[in-house]
């Protein structure tokens, strides 16, 4: 299926989990200071493992960057 991760279209196996998406962008599941929004809603870390990504979903995966 196709999903949009951080603005880029990507192909993921059907039934992929959010944790797979994280792996796809090179984020270790245990990295602290990371957050995920699934279709503009925050998805708590606890749900990363179980939650399967709906087809065509929009994921935002963010971490801390320098800012004033």
């Amino acid at each position, binding site marked *: 299926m196709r999903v949009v991760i*951080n603005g880029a279209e990507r192909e993921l196996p059907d039934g992929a989990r959010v944790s797979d998406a994280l792996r796809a*962008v090179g984020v270790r599941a245990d990295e602290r200071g990371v957050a995920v929004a699934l279709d503009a809603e925050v998805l708590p870390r606890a749900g990363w493992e179980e939650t399967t990504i709906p087809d065509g979903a929009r994921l935002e995966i963010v971490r801390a960057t320098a800012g004033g």
Partner: protein
Amino acid sequence: MEDRLTIAGEALRSRLILGSGGFRSLDQFERAIRASGAELVTVALRRVEQAPGGLYEAIERAGCRVLPNTAGCFTARDAVATARLAREAFQTSWVKLEVIGDRRTLLPDAVELLQAAETLVGEGFTVLPYTNEDAVLARRLEDAGCAAVMPLGSPIGSGLGIRNPTAIEMLRQAVGVPVILDAGIGTASDAALAMELGCDGVLSATAIARARDPERMARALRLAVEAGREALAAGRVPRVDHVARASTSDAGLPDLTPA
């Protein structure tokens, strides 16, 4: 009892808040944190591809706490969504709320800011809004439940210092929550002045990060904030215009006229 900046019941070990933007290297950033003595350090949230990583760890290594901001948001909706992401990412309910109204000046948008503040306070956030020097808006933000207000001294990154001390003093008198001077600080005397005007703290990003020697400027601002705070508490002498006030008495002046 100690004189410490206390926000939402938490006493911080420094009245200087450090912005993490603009440093040339992570190492330089870490040296600046230590020199600044700051406990709170602001960060932004960005997509992992554009956010190198290591920053959060560096801040924790330095024994500091992250204060996430909502930089880059132009609407209450985006700011609220960003704050929620930040709470999840850093497990903190504190947020430096920025809702910008103009790309060129990066001045806050009073209406969207107040709206976002109301929503976030309702969701249990500890909200520190970046606002203009408007005493009335500051009071409204306090009434909305903000834990502090962060008026600008001059535009973000301008280094123009405090362009309107009168307005900052009026704002200080208008609210009860802590006032953190945010944006515009260019050098030590600006930070000292902020404290003398009655501000409870100072946030500095550009002044430190983009100084020729950030570590040294961090130390300078730490000293300046302390100096200004002490000066306020010491009770300065009144200003007198057009006449001098001798610091030496003429009584007992010897007569040294040659015979």
